[in-house]
């Protein structure tokens, strides 16, 4: 462990968050939730035991996709929706690198939806941070694939007619091996989620509810406001019963496949009756139920790790196949390959 901790040491001095900041001026709007994510990443990165030069940030297009410019690691600001596909190429070619994707709700779930679900399915060892502000910011305020139905925006003056995607259930359905959610205003929690994502081997999907001060201000206020937060947020913890509320007075009970919000003070139910969260549940059904809370009236919004399972990764399997075939067939010999098959000599 000691040698791992010493990796980010330069000239005998341990690297700090500042060492991960670039010289570029950050050009997000004042008050944007993206700042919080940037500073938590810069805080966590020196502690991960990964050499600085081995970090790669890949992004697509959108406000959040400017992220790589504000880090002093390797970075690739690409084209709309394609970050996951480019990152997959980076990781498949170089499994030794720690590859991170910064993306938004339009970038990842609209134009880039296909790459996202396939990166999940293939379990590419990428860390995907979704900055979900439920709006298109950089194109100045159209509804996004995570905007609620009926939302009034520039492109939907009479209310949007689209049903939104639920990013967590999409990721669970696409067989992502790590699915978590956090809030831009809860920096401690965000740090934990970043650390957990970094430690996961395989695709790690972290949805960050992120406030857009200009086009969708206050979208997550019920979850972040001091007064209302406790009643609206359920903090998921492994092996703990699902308790929430200002005085820890409410809980979630699972009645068959139906979740129920129950009171812990009316004498009907006690803490022992509550649903105990199991992050490592092999069956995705319960994680899917958790993800569905946002569509259920009166339910709190879960944050934390919905599910983490372990299976081999695409990049690891590709490398292993190359290795095994090389052992089996011997290292490739070009001369032999050129003259393989049926050859004949003309004299």
């Amino acid at each position, binding site marked *: 462990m000691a040698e791992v901790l010493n990796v980010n040491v330069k000239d005998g001095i341990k690297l700090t968050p500042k060492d991960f900041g670039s010289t570029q001026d950050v050009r997000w709007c004042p008050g944007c939730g993206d700042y919080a994510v940037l500073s938590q990443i810069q805080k966590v990165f020196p502690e991960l035991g990964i050499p600085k030069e081995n970090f790669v940030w890949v992004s697509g297009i959108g406000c959040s996709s400017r992220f790589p410019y504000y880090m002093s690691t390797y970075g690739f600001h*690409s084209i709309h929706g394609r970050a996951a596909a480019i990152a997959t190429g980076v990781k498949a*070619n170089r499994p030794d690198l720690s590859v991170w994707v910064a993306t938004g709700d339009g970038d990842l779930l609209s134009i880039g939806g296909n790459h996202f679900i396939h990166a999940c399915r293939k379990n590419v060892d990428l860390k995907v941070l979704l900055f979900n502000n439920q709006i298109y910011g950089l194109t100045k305020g159209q509804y996004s694939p995570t905007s609620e139905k009926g939302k009034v925006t520039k492109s939907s003056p009479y209310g949007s007619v689209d049903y939104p995607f639920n990013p967590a259930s999409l990721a669970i359905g696409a067989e992502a091996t790590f699915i978590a959610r956090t809030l831009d205003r809860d920096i401690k929690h965000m740090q934990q989620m970043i650390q957990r994502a970094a430690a996961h081997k395989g695709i790690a999907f972290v949805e960050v509810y992120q406030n857009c001060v200009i086009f969708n201000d206050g979208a997550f206020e019920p979850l972040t406001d001091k007064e209302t937060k406790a009643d609206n947020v359920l903090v998921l913890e492994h092996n703990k019963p699902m308790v929430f509320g200002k005085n820890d007075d409410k809980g979630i009970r699972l009645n068959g496949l139906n979740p129920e919000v129950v009171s812990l003070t009316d004498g009907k139910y006690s803490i022992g009756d509550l649903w105990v969260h199991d992050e490592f549940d092999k069956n995705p059904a319960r994680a899917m139920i958790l993800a569905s809370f946002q569509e259920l009236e009166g339910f709190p919004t879960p944050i934390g790790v919905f599910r983490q399972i372990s299976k081999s990764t695409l990049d690891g399997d590709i490398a292993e196949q190359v290795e095994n075939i090389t052992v089996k067939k011997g290292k490739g010999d070009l001369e032999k390959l050129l003259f393989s098959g049926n050859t004949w000599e003309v004299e």
Partner: protein
Amino acid sequence: MTKEVQILEDVTIRFAGDSGDGMQLTGSQFTNTSALAGNDISTLPDYPAEIRAPIGTTYGVSGFQLHFSSNEVFTPGDHPDVLVAMNPAALKVNLKDLKKGGTIICNANAFDLKNLKLANYDTNPLEDGSLEGYELIQAPLTKLTIAALEGTDLSNKEVARCKNFFALGLMYWLFSKPIEPTLDWIKLKFKKNEAIQNANKEALLAGYSYGDNTELFTTKYQVEAAKLEKGFYRNVSGNEATALGFVAASVKSGLKLFLGSYPITPASDILHELSKHKNFGIKTFQAEDEIAGVCSAIGAAYSGALALTTTSGPGLALKTEALGLAVMTELPLVIVNVQRGGPSTGLPTKTEQADLMQAIYGRNGECPIPVVAASTPSDCFYMAMEACRIALKYMTPVLLLTDGYLANGSEPWKVPHENELPEIPTKFRTEVEGFAPYSRDENLARPWAIPGTPGLEHRIGGLEKANINGNVCYEPANHDFMIKLRAEKVRNIRNDIPDLEINGEDEGDLLVLGWGGTYGAITAAINKARKNGLKVSHAHFKHLFPFPKNTEDVLKKFKKILVVEINLGQLAKIVKSEFVIDVLQLNKVQGLPFKSSDIEAKIIEILGGK
């Protein structure tokens, strides 16, 4: 029965049948055997897009044409001498191409009422005299195959499916070919199913001895070995050669190969071939779509691989935006477009040359990408290597154009030795001192500084870059400068590629100008025209963007220029605007390669007949 053996110089055969009849297999076996026997060859597989169209219909007909000779061969042959028709539909579709007085060998058993109706024949062509003038040989191939395989445990259907091997055996006899190569192949191919293995072997042998014993044939033929240049040869298709060229480029550059690709006809065989050679450290990634194919390759290039993506026209259209990113980020990348009939889905299994404009100009913004094209199946090997050389030396994406005809067609290839192939020098930047991501070397290439290199951490992307430091830059003068710099970098490549070569006199009345897969047909036409005393030369572009630097000098020395293309005149348009000259055109867009006779006729039309 002893039969007369007649020596021929040159034969073209077309095998035709239902798409389930195994005609591609029969054709390629005959090809390999002929190649091994020393003939020069050229082939043209022609198959429908449907895997198994309804049996007996004309749209389900699959064909394989091959031209073998004791002389040098340039094309798969304009008109077959022999047509092997496994059913009425195959006869109906292919008869129009058969040489006057050519031979038809048909499976008489397939000419029943049902099949005649399916092929829209009102009367049986074998009986109604419509085939007069051809040499018609009616062999009951199905019945003979069933008889030969009597007593096997196979079902009737399985037995009947062996008739293509019976037909192949008969053709081997007719053209005095050895059957051993195919016997060996059957043994290997069907090693897991002994019953099928034996049945195919018996059918082949029975077909061969049928030739000896039947009275249908009084003569058999022989085509002697061609006088090819000394050396070791193998038969190679364009797609196979392309894949081998990339393996060679990987070895010669010392870089690991990464292919990101989405299956598409007729390019998929390159993916298939490369995925076999993982022991060269090759990584192949079958992406979720065309865009992910190129994007994963861009990611691999960024992180230090020799990166490729392979596709055909519609796929190239989908990759367009990502190619702009590769230009902006100045990463080495090779994109292969195995052109097929377009637009849209077009003719997926047929050949065309209509993506030249798309390759050179088909992107948003000023977006120069070098474009190279292969001229023959084996040339695909060298042009794949050349595309990699340019990409790595100039830090640029490079487009390699081949086409369906080159990709699936095959020819004998004099195999080069590893040590005869050029090295492809490459270097990653590691030196921290003085590093700037958009600084330039003498070729105007920027440094390749890959993730994992300490001290060289930097950011790239699709937004305009400031000269030298590579930061995002919206400065008007910088944009103008960078646009011109990227253009100049690519334009300079003209000083680093071979001159445009001329086949024939380097001045005269007429220059035939071509590019890509028309090489063989033009060469054959030119050779014939010159034998007949016409003053005509041929120049063939392998580098289409930029053009070789002597191009203008070459063009100026001819009174007339004829541009031959399987499109409506894309190269013609570029040559006209680039060199401000007038050109004549020959354009035919039928999904098929040119017949050399078409080109020869045009030459005669221009120069006056002889």
